[in-house]
């Protein structure tokens, strides 16, 4: 695998839908590093990504847009900076059903702040349809407060059209 200069990074908390989103876009089956969850992640899913997910979109002329998903757990944050090198933009997925999705959003915006300022980002709120409260406005407020030019959309990370739309939104701000 050759790491090209065109990369889109997918990040977000555990279970936010990063692997599913990359699967929607990728021209190849996602190369994952899922292992059986043994920590608090087990409450959300049986398997979790520990290094990264990888897929790519092949353009007409053969050029590749690499898609990287970061591991969700904070203890793997040393991977984040490495994965962002050469990235063109960030897709941040926020799980609306997590215990504090707005705090999750703030955390990732801060963690990837430099990368976002240098490139661009979009936020996809996932599982909004089964969350007890809408967090859209709160996430929007966080973005406005930080002054980032970031579009916020509610999506289903398993739905190709939704993920396509999210990447369209990202492209618009790049």
């Amino acid at each position, binding site marked *: 695998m050759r790491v090209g200069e*065109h990369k889109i990074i997918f990040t977000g908390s555990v279970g936010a839908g990063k692997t599913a989103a990359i699967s929607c*876009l990728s021209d190849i089956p996602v190369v994952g590093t899922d292992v059986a969850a043994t920590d608090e992640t087990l409450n959300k899913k049986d398997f979790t990504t520990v290094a990264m997910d990888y897929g790519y*979109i*092949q*353009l*007409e*002329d053969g*050029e590749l*847009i690499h898609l990287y998903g970061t591991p969700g757990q904070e203890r793997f944050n040393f991977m984040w900076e490495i994965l962002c090198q050469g990235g*063109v933009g960030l897709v941040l997925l926020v799980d609306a059903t997590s215990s504090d999705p707005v705090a999750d959003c703030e955390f990732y915006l801060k963690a990837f702040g430099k990368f976002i300022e240098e490139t*661009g980002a979009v936020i996809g709120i996932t599982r909004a349809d*089964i969350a*007890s409260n809408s967090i*859209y406005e709160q996430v*929007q407020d966080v*973005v*406005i407060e930080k002054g980032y*030019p*970031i*579009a*916020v*959309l*509610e*999506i*289903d990370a398993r739905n*190709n*059209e*939704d993920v*396509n*739309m999210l*990447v*369209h*939104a990202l*492209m*618009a*701000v*790049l």
Partner: protein
Amino acid sequence: MPLSYNDTSGEVALINADTDVGISYLEEENNDQVKIILAERAVSTAVLGFRSLERPVSVHDLVNALSTYCKHFSSRIDTASATATIASGSDGSASVSQTVGNNTPLLLHEFISVHRDKTLIKLECAPYHPLYINGISGTCATRASLAEIHIIAKETESRPVVTEIDAAEELNQATSNDMVSYPIGTIIWQIAMVGANGTILPNHSLDTAVKLKSLPRFPREYMRNHPEFLKLSGLILKQSMTIRQLQQATQLDIEVVTDFYNLVFSLGLSSIDKSADSAELYKKKNVERESLLSRLAKKLISAA
């Protein structure tokens, strides 16, 4: 459905409407303590005028149904002296004032005024189902489809009739069966796209630069079908741009760009950038990246 705003005690009853006992209960004059009655059925069709939930009723369904009621309970206001003012922006440079109750030049203006002034109105345009617009909860309840709302917005000969309504009437209508509740911003957006005819706001020009503060909240289906709005939004999220520059950058029809400009400004989602030098506003992306992005867009569109 006995509803009393001043009495906060009460119960929520979920009745199995597929049984004789359940039907009997629904037919009775119910206990005053029962504030909300929801029918549970094998199919989600109305029964004796009560909202019904399809079996099995999940907690999520129940929460959604109750949320709808709560949202409307909280929207009660005194609308007796409501006078709507359409202000096109925080700078107050352009404003059109009119009294709710009269027919108005544009359906769009009605929605914008309700949204801004947080009033409640019923908008009738026969033969279509009336629109019950709640500026407090930011919803528009109707049985009319979006396509029919487009037709109403385009209608030039038969103007919609607007009447004020009280919170109780709005609640009764909005929570009745088969009524679809749309976010008011979505309706405003869609109406503007078909009904504003590309006319720029008063005292604005093709060279007025604006910057978007946040993206309008659209339903997914709408966004999927209108990627051009994502592009327009993205461009002025990142930098101040004029209508002329937006049109040049996107190659969309000037009417579409103007309607977009009008709308985000009217909804308070954008602000004028007076300090910006319009000649320097639009920093074009470098050619290589622009090419990459356009090829990626092409690929995504073909994949869809």
